[in-house]
């Protein structure tokens, strides 16, 4: 199991497009993936776009990402990169 603490830096936070990107990436891996909003004590399934949208996490929110399984490192690497790039990379490619 690995954890990674991250702060949302893109303008509109975890809105539909980032959520969709995260889920699309996460479901490729076998590991479980959780997103935790510690301040509200919310634990959500990182492979569910609905749950993630319900977090309604704006810019500046601090989250804990938690991956658990055989490919946890790969999953975490990809997701963390998305956050760091403000979910921009895929948009440019599209």
């Amino acid at each position: 199991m690995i954890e990674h603490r991250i702060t949302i830096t893109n303008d509109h936070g975890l809105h539909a497009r980032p959520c969709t990107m995260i889920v699309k990436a996460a479901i490729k891996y076998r590991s479980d993936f959780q997103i935790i909003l510690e301040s509200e004590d919310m634990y959500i399934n990182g492979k569910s776009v609905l749950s993630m949208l319900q977090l309604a996490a704006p810019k500046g929110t601090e989250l804990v990402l938690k991956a658990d399984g055989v490919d946890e490192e790969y999953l975490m690497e990809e997701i963390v990169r998305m956050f760091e790039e403000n979910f921009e990379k895929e948009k440019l490619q599209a």
Partner: protein
Amino acid sequence: MRILTGIGVSPGVAIGKAFVREPQKFNVQCRHIETHTIEDEKNRFFDSIKKTVQDIEHLITTLSFSIEDQEILETHKMILLDPELEINVLGEIEAELVCLEFALYNYFTGVIDVFDNMENEYFSQRAIDFKEVAHRLLNYLSGETDAYIEELSGEHILLMEEMPPSKVTEFAAHDVPGICAVKGSKTSHSAIIARSIGIPMVIGIPNLLKKAVEGETVIVDGRNGLVIFSPDEDTLKKYKKYRWRQIKHKDDLKYLTGKPAITRDGVRIKILNNIEFPKELDLIKQNGADGVGLFRTEFLYIDKKELPDETFQYNIYREIAEKLHPNPLVIRTFDLGGDKLSGFLNIKQERNPNLGCRGIRLSLQYTDIFRIQLRAILRAAVSGNISVMFPMITGLDDYRAAMKILRKVRAELVAEGIECSESLSVGVMIEVPSAAILADQLAKECDFFSIGTNDLIQYTLAVDRDADNVARYYSGYHPAVLHLIEITVNSAKKANIPVSICGEMASERDFIPFLIGLGIRQLSVSPSMTLITKEQVMKLDSNALAGIIPEVKSRGSITEEQEYLKQWRTEHEY
């Protein structure tokens, strides 16, 4: 009077009463189920998710909207595949013994409520996504979405969110004179069909449904991409006159139906049709075309949503060939991009599908699909005048690789004792510049050429014809395009093989003299353009056309070419 501007995707004018087709509202009854039917209900859930996801993937790939729209559809897909949806809905069915519809309704109502109550507007807007997904699912389950079609008649202009490609022919059957939609693109299937049937159509009007009032008079101007609500008297008069001339012109041309297209000096030009659906055969007969110069077989996938088997394809090819006999049927093998087959094949998303694995490339990579299609074509060719052509050929290597498979498939059929054509004629689509440049080489090995102008322009000028902001770069009058067409025609003449032209340039009035002047004797056009093309050809004298070619070659810009050809035509129209 209110004028909205969109994109005209099918020319002509239609006048009628607005028939507004709003995205639907749903009304769900709670039906209790028995313990032993829980499994059935669950299976309905999986089935409806699967079908709805397929529909969405279909929309993503066949209708090219903006990136934003595609992203929204991706989100919808993820909502459908959300594990929370599955757990909650199946859980409720099992615990409460309620029907699937009610469980879905409860789930989505709850979710929509949560979003509606969010303070951050950016997030609360997402309720709309869940509403749309819920609509899609419940509409699929109720199966009653098409009842409105029965209400349509010859006086209704249909206004919708988006046009389902499979429905356009049904609208035409109800005599709907014109169609407008919020979404779509010029190359979307519904647009191709509308052009083929000749229904004026305008798309790409974001606030169409909000601006429309049910039952008010509306004009659809497909050439200029305008939709005019409650026109003032002068405007209405102008358009009525225009439409009257259009109808009269169509009527005037009817006498040409059974006549062959022959130039004034006696040169026979074959006017063929581009078709997509077997249903279009009636249109071919009505317009008196000389056969089918391009049968796009993509619909076999796009409508069916599953891999079409050999028998299914064979039956369709044979039926069309028999009906056309002795006129020709030219079948183009699947010209799909990998993106359109994501439902069947495990293909990675491409950054640039137009430059990716499409056309013959896909056929050579997924040879099972290609082999099945070739088997069906070879078998059907026994019953009619069938030939086959390969799309996206870039040179001899592609062509030879495809021919190798064709020969192998034929040998297999012979070994199995199945009757098949021994002498199928095989052509190459010239639509990539490299193929035009190497036409000399290709002409030595293949039986005919068909120049696909739409793609040839796109690839020669490096311009996506659906992208609004570069649309002005897309022009068949570019000297480079004309040059490539000339090379191709000359190579075909030298090798003594036929060359036809399919693509929208084949039916452009100003362009036809140039094509005939080059020596092209076959034009393949949309069925609705058959008679107009015939009329144009019959006005020409091929002796006078020879002079056009050196004149065209001496000009170096799009504007000069276009002006010259337009001027030539107006001066020489008899």
